[in-house]
C-alpha cells in the first residue's frame, strides 16, 4: 500500500470500522449476547419494561373507568335537568347511553391488557430468578427457564 494513504482508502477504512462497530453494538443488544455477557443490565431492562407496561395498562383502564363515571354522571344530570346540552350538541340521552356501552366494550379489552401486562412482568421476574439465559443453539422446548 502506498504511503500516504489516498483519501478513498481512508474513507473506506473508516466506513468499515463504523460498520463493524454498529454490528458489534447490535450484537451486544441481542438476547443471546446480553443475557450471557451483561445479565444484570439485561434483566433490569426486561423488568423495567414490564413494570412500565403494567403501569401504562393500569392507567389506560383507569381512564376508561373514569370516563364511564363521567358519562354516567352526565346522563343522570341530563335526566334531572341540571345539565343542558348546547343546541346542536352531540350529547343526548341516546348518545350517552351508547357511550356507556362503547366504554364497556373498550374496558373489557383494557382489563385483558392489564392481566397480560402483569403476566409479562411476572414472567420477566421469574426468568431472572431462574437465572435464565438465551439458548445459543435453538430454544429450549418450554421457551422459559424453570426454577
Amino acid at each position, binding site marked *: 500500500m502506498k504511503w500516504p494513504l489516498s483519501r478513498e482508502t481512508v474513507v473506506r477504512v473508516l466506513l468499515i470500522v463504523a460498520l463493524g462497530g454498529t454490528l458489534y453494538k447490535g450484537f451486544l443488544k441481542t438476547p443471546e449476547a446480553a443475557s450471557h455477557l451483561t445479565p444484570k443490565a439485561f434483566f433490569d431492562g426486561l423488568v*423495567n419494561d414490564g*413494570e412500565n407496561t403494567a403501569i401504562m395498562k*393500569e*392507567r389506560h383502564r383507569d381512564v376508561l373507568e373514569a370516563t364511564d*363515571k*363521567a*358519562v354516567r354522571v352526565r346522563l343522570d344530570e341530563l335526566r334531572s335537568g341540571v345539565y343542558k346540552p348546547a343546541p346542536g350538541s352531540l350529547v343526548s340521552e341516546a*348518545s350517552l347511553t351508547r*357511550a356507556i356501552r362503547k366504554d364497556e366494550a373498550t374496558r373489557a379489552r383494557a382489563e385483558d391488557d392489564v392481566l397480560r401486562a402483569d403476566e409479562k412482568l411476572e414472567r420477566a421476574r421469574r426468568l431472572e430468578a431462574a437465572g435464565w439465559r438465551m439458548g445459543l443453539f435453538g430454544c429450549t422446548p418450554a421457551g422459559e427457564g424453570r426454577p
Partner: protein
Amino acid sequence: MSRGRCSLGKWLGLGLLAVVLGGVGGLVWFGAWYYPALGLAGIPKSGYRQALDTAARGMTASDGLVFEDFDFSKFREVARGGEAYAWGAARCKAADGSTTFYWVYLEWSKKRGQWLRNYSLELAAPDDEIYFTRLVPGQLGRAGMAAGKLLGQLGSRLREAAAGRPAGQDRQGLQSPGL
C-alpha cells in the same frame, strides 16, 4: 430593476419562512417544554399530591371549571429505572352547575428532575369521540371537531400559562384536603 424585484421576493420568502419556522418552534417549545413544567418545578417525586393538585387547579380553571376534589388519584413508580407516574380524575363544577370530570396525568421527568403535565383533558366533553356514530358527524364534521379540540386545548393552555404565574405562587401549600 428585475434584480431588485427578485431579491425583494427572496427576502419576503425568507421572512415568511422565518415566521413559519419561528411559529412552529414556538409551539413546540411551549407544548413540549414550557407548559408541561409550568408551576411544578421544585416539587419532589414524593410530592405528587401537590403536583397533581397544582396541575388540576390550573387546567380546570383555564377551562372555566371550579375544581372541587380528586375523585381518585394514584401514584405509581417502577422499582428499577426511576420512572414515576401520577394520575387521577378531578371532580369539577361547570358554570351551569353540572358536574364535570377532568383527567389529570403527570409523568416524572428523570431528565429535568420534576413532574411534567402529560395527556390531560375533560372527560366526556361534548366534543368527545365517544358520542360519535359511524355516520354522525361526517368526515368534515369530525375534522372540524378535532381541529376545534386541538385549538381549544392550545387556547386553554395559553390562558393557563398567562394566568398561572402569579396565581401559582399564591397557591403554594394550599392543597385540597382529603386527597
